[in-house]
């Protein structure tokens, strides 16, 4: 299988603390991957590096068929290349309606001039309506997103990610603070999305990871400790010691 994202030999330290230590990771174009690991294992820092928020001290981050190096590109440029990110805490624009949030995320030219002259076409509004349907917010299109429940905000953010039509989705703890029914819905959305693109999910909840039914990467102290199916890694002695055993 070809590789969509290849991270190799990446290290980064903050004030002497090695957050990421010689980390290597790769994922294919239509693959679901769960990343688990104890607190401080470097899960969020890993996402920061891929999305351009943090510059690594060394290593390579290679993207796509054109083998583009993501190091040195701005966050916005990386996002335009097709990497979408969902934060742990739902971050939607609370002062704006669900529709405005989705329209802003919808894949369209991002430059100031084209945005200034942009007016939503019927096709764009239809796409927004379809997305709202998919994330269960069809009845809330004109509500301010600040008025949504926590779970709805999480979905809206996932919806915004999908609207970006990224080739790779980085999702940080999507099920945090959700009811069991909401979790199931979230699982379905993510599994559906992984059919056409790469999805990386960082999650603490083992039950949620099991339901995703995908390959699992275990991070520990900034590098990969184990990789494979969930049953495979949970049977790993080291993994049990550092993570599950606690």
């Amino acid at each position, binding site marked *: 299988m070809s590789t969509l994202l290849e991270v190799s030999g990446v290290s980064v330290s903050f004030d002497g603390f090695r957050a990421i230590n010689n980390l290597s990771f790769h994922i294919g174009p239509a693959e679901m991957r769960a990343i688990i690991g104890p607190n401080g294992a470097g899960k969020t820092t890993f996402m920061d590096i891929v*999305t351009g*928020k943090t510059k690594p001290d060394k290593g390579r981050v290679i993207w796509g068929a054109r083998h583009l190096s993501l190091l040195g590109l*701005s*966050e*916005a*440029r990386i*996002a*335009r290349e097709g990497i*979408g*990110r969902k*934060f742990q805490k739902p*971050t939607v*624009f*609370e*002062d*704006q*309606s669900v529709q*405005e949030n989705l*329209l*802003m*995320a919808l894949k369209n030219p*991002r*430059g*100031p001039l084209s*945005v*200034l002259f*942009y*007016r*939503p076409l019927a096709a764009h509004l239809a796409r927004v309506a379809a997305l709202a349907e998919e994330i269960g917010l069809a009845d809330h299109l*004109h509500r301010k997103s600040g008025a949504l429940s926590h779970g709805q905000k999480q979905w809206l953010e996932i919806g*915004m990610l999908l609207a*970006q039509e990224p080739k790779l989705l980085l999702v940080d703890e999507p099920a945090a603070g959700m009811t069991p029914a909401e979790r199931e819905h979230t699982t379905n959305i993510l599994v559906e999305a992984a059919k056409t693109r790469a999805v990386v999910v960082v999650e603490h909840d083992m039950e949620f990871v099991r339901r995703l039914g995908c390959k699992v990467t275990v991070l520990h102290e900034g590098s990969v400790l184990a990789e494979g199916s969930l049953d495979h890694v949970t049977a790993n002695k080291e993994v049990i010691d550092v993570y599950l055993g606690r």
Partner: protein
Amino acid sequence: MHLFHKRGASTVIFLALLVAFTIVVTLLSEGMGVGIISTSFVKTLGKTLCLALVAISMDLVWGYAGILSLGHFALFGLGGYMIGMWLMYERTREIVVSSLADAPIPPTVQEVSDAIANQIFGVVGSTEFPLIWAFADSLLAQLMLVVLVPGVLAGVFGWLAFRSRVAGVYLSILTQAMTLALSLYLFQNDNGLRGNNGLSGLQNLPGLSDVSQAVVSVWFLWGAALALGLGYLLAVWVVFGKFGSVLRGIRDDEARVRFLGYPVETYKLVLFTGTACMAGIAGALYYPQAGIVNPAEMAPIASIYLAVWVAIGGRGRLYGAVIGAAFVSLVSSWFTGGQAPDVSLGFYTIKWVDWWLVVLGLSFVLVTLFAPKGIGGLFDLLERRTAPDRHGADLGPDQGALREKEASE
């Protein structure tokens, strides 16, 4: 869509009120009407419209994009300087030419130029034209500079600041430093802009010395009203759609906008530069009405006032900025103009000239703490109360205009 519809309604109402206001003032003016409103008050009203325009530019950068610029009034002043250079040059040239016309030998071009320079710069002990006056004889060039000088200054400043990801309070401090540096520079006598004397006599339009100020004041009122109307429309168009969405996104969560793929720094730069040009135009219409522009006008405190107007009027809504600028500046000139009666407490007499700033500061603090939406927020209350049985949105700006007029009469 509901939201768009509402915004469209407030724009139509605003423009209708602006037109009505202009017509009423014209009909009551000394220059073109029955003479109930004095020429100096027509000028005050015209200047107020210019302040409303610069308040809109402030609202765009601060209220919509969250960039608290403490330099937009300095850019406003720069616009005034740029038009002032032409006004002063051309007016002085007229006087010089007419006084030299009686001379036995016709004056050479050099003699005329020296005489103009002597007239303008004698006050700072110089008799030569500085380089920056190179285009002062061309109205077209100076009009372009009205837009270009504030625009380029803001562009270079913004490029340096935004590229380094300076934001929030640090950016405010930087803009204030820029403002202070600019006004200190202009205070110097040898900078070619007459130091603390500034440029004066700007109310006299070259070639129109036989037109009375009463008429000129109404012309400028029209010009200011037209600029405000167009500026308002432009601002509505900018914040109406997705661009406004992105700006508000930048205000609320800059990092998130970046991860959506929008080049946040470019957006900030475009907005900062664009509003600087707008401020320059407002200043170029203001100072011919004021008659004089000097560095004191551009001191950092002026830009802070601008922020106070927008905060009191209501950030993040365009008519809020207009109401804030009009209301606060008119009330302010009433209090500080010595028209407000002193309040005698027996042991102490409150002189408003001294106490007005305290009142203004206090109301700024109170508005920030208890009514963060400002005066504009009142319309939300009205709208909510009246929404079930009538067009709530229509009432809002109506009320604002009432307030505006109350303040001006």
